[in-house]
């Protein structure tokens, strides 16, 4: 039962990540701001990583490299925020 619930919630998490990626993609098209585009990419990578984790888990195997997807997505988000902040500071100084 617990296993089924875990898989069910895992699927909901993947769908949620994809939905968030689509929202950010919509914002990036509306505003042409690379900040939103980077967020969309990061959340798509989160979803991809989650799919990989589920596949590996259901194959009853261990492959820690699949968690690199999460790490890369987090790094993209940090890069996006830092870049946006630098851009804002640059505009303030002008």
């Amino acid at each position, binding site marked *: 039962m*617990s296993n089924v619930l875990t898989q069910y919630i895992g699927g909901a998490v993947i769908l949620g*990540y994809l939905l968030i990626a689509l929202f950010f993609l919509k914002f990036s098209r509306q505003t042409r701001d690379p900040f939103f585009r980077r967020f969309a990419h990061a959340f798509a990578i989160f979803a991809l990583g989650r799919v990989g984790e589920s596949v590996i888990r259901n194959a*009853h195997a261990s492959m820690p490299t699949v968690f690199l997807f999460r790490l890369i997505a*987090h790094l993209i988000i940090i890069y996006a925020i830092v870049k946006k902040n630098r851009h804002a500071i640059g505009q303030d100084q002008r």
Partner: protein
Amino acid sequence: MNASLIYFLRLTPIQRGSAIVPRASRSAQYAIAGPKNKKVRLPAWRLGGQSMIPSLVYALCAVTSIVCATLLLRSSQKLAMPLLFWSGASFAALAIGNVLLFVDLAVVKDRDLLLLQNCITLAGISMLLYGLIWETK
């Protein structure tokens, strides 16, 4: 394929529920590593015959998600944008999930915290979706 690559990409059977068990036993590693169970010299990044890279990846996931949450929450205080606040709250939940991942797979190996992780992550995603749907103009 050399021995280090086999260690890194190895697939080992799961012994407890559905959780990923990150490491094979030392004897299993030797069995994979070479013919006739020959002992191999382990690289420096392996302490006690076990790879440190998985633990490092889990720890880095946790650290980067905490950094994301901090940056977003700080920005939301400065700019007073609701979407930034919801993003920060969401990443705080994701950070808790990633810390639990590290604890589950690298510290406490005899308990399965996957369901708790997934619930916390889903709560975080729901917060961000709320922000995206209701707090954007």
